[in-house]
């Protein structure tokens, strides 16, 4: 951005004082060029290569792995949301969640079997599945445990956007509609459920209603245009649009058609929600609206002057239609602009131009979807969910910007009656090791 453009932008909203400070800062910074920067390369660069790697200078952009995890064979890591742009998650940075490590599967050996309450049990090779009609959709996958750091009280002051909401990723998925496979096998009357099974060491299973499978579930073999990554289920996984990630069985090898859900360990002892009224809720599948400001966000540092506030929003109920940003701790809200999203159940990028005057403030975002759902405040969330719950936290995340430009967690410390029991910054495990 050149100086004239900056002037035009600032004249729209900036206080004169802020501009003077900003202009002084630029003049100082402008003299610090290294000698190398003044001309193009004087020698040949690297040769063509068969498979591209990112720049060596970007090696620090990695998934966050919690130091609290008890093993790296069962657990989750986080997509570095605060270091990425746009909406597509690079395949190498898609968050991971496994229950028995990442299996190595030869696609030539791999098979998918559909059996149970069907007219004709069928076995498919990968080549069979690729012959069938294909669908490509851009869809988010979010772990039900996303937002787990919201269960800490008082709030963790080392929180980043990545650790707040990085158990979400957004990819272009290609596969065959599961409905086509079920029609090939011929579902028998009385069948209501599917029990998909993974080929991982945990032989992971879940229950999925047949009705959802007939609507929009994909048996995916490609992610962002190439084969699935091993940690995303290579060579075959379920993608269940808008639903919690843990139901999207990876390394898919078998689907049993039944009249009853299996009540697997990961839909009973885990991935159930404890509620404020003392009940435990099962099958909380549809992901509620979420938004997270990725810039400026926790542990970043900003200067006075212009900033484009940027963030991500998504909902399992449907398209995000509005995101609002507050620059004054929730007293007033203004509408952010949304970049067009290719699919109603994909992540959307929101933005708002802002000139920071150097005064301490709290910024936050909240999203609405096309069904009218929005995000609760912390207090509203804990009025419904119990303080010992582990999943589906989607309360508004606040960031506090100090007078020194340092950004930290801006969430409130809750009253004792609402407060989650987990205290301080050291977690006890959980799917990401963070809660």
């Amino acid at each position, binding site marked *: 951005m050149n100086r004239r453009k900056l002037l035009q932008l600032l004249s729209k909203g900036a206080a004169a004082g802020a501009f003077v400070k900003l202009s002084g800062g630029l003049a100082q910074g402008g003299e610090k060029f290294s000698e190398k920067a003044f001309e193009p390369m004087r020698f040949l660069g690297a040769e063509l290569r068969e498979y591209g790697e990112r720049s060596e200078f970007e090696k620090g952009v990695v998934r966050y792995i919690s130091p609290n995890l*008890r*093993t790296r*064979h069962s657990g989750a890591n986080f997509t570095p949301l605060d270091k990425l742009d746009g909406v597509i998650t690079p395949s190498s940075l898609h968050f991971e969640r496994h229950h*028995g490590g990442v299996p190595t599967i030869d696609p030539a050996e791999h098979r998918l*079997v559909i*059996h149970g309450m069907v*007219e*004709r*049990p*069928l*076995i*498919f090779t990968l080549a*069979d599945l690729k*012959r*069938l009609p294909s669908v490509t959709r851009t869809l988010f996958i979010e772990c039900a445990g996303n937002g787990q750091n919201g269960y800490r009280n008082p709030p963790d002051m080392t929180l980043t956007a990545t650790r707040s909401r990085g158990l979400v990723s957004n990819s272009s998925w290609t596969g065959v509609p599961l409905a*086509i*496979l079920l*029609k090939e*096998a*011929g*579902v028998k009357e009385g069948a*209501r459920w599917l*029990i998909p099974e993974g080929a991982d*060491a*945990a*032989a*992971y299973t879940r229950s999925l*209603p047949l*009705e959802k499978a007939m609507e929009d579930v994909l048996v995916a073999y490609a992610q962002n245009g190439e084969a699935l990554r091993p940690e995303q289920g290579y060579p075959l996984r379920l993608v269940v649009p808008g639903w919690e990630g843990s139901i999207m069985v990876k390394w898919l090898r*078998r689907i*049993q058609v*039944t009249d*009853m859900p*299996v*009540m*697997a*360990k990961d839909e*009973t*002892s885990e991935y159930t*929600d*404890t509620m*404020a009224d*003392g*009940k*435990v*809720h*099962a*099958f*909380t599948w*549809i992901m509620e609206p979420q938004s997270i400001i990725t810039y400026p966000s926790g542990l970043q540092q900003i200067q006075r002057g212009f900033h484009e506030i940027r963030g991500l929003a998504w909902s399992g109920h449907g398209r995000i239609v509005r995101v609002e940003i507050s620059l004054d701790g929730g007293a007033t809200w203004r509408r952010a602009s949304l970049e067009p999203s290719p699919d109603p159940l994909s992540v959307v990028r929101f933005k708002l131009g802002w000139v920071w005057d150097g005064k301490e403030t709290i910024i936050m975002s909240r999203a609405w979807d096309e069904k009218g759902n929005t995000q609760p405040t912390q207090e509203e969330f804990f009025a419904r969910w*119990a*303080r*010992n*719950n*582990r999943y589906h936290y989607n309360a508004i995340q606040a960031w506090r910007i100090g007078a020194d430009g340092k950004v930290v967690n801006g969430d409130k410390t809750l009253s004792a009656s609402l407060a989650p*029991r*987990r205290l301080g910054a050291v977690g*006890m*495990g*959980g799917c990401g090791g963070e809660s």
Partner: protein
Amino acid sequence: MKRLGLVLLGLALLAGVLAQPGGRYQIGTPLTEQEVQRWNIRPSILPDGRGLPPGQGTVDEGERVYNAQCLGCHGANGQGGVFNRLVGEPFPVTKDVDSVDFVIGNYWQYPTTLFDYIRRAMPLQAPGTLSDNEVYALVAYLLYQNGVIDGSEPMNAQTLPKVQMPARAILELDPTTQKRFPWLRLP
């Protein structure tokens, strides 16, 4: 009555369409039920007991298997170690119970889940290696330790599905899911 008839006719037609011999695309190889069983080697156990194999196990046998196979991760008597605590009191959790203390006795809602999960996924380093009798014995031991059963009879395909789990009393279907699927009931 007329409407019910129409609905039934519709369902029958739908089933007929889904069951067209050969399917739409004639892609995928048919399997016999015997061939299916070769792929179904860690079968799902349904809450009504369907899928449970022959065999049985007692609390005492389970204690021996537990100490040999499980104690290293889950601690003596299931009190927790590197991995989850498994044993507590047989009363459903309240919101004052920390989630690290969610165990079989206070949180697991279906007895069949124990057999399904242990045979499918445990021990973490060597899943699929326990015999059916060892799995029945472990289920008996863990339910006994949690105070859910008195241990007077062995666990098998008949006794296991009849066990009443205390936490089933507080389990409900998510209301958003109920609205989306009005027919859905928890077992």
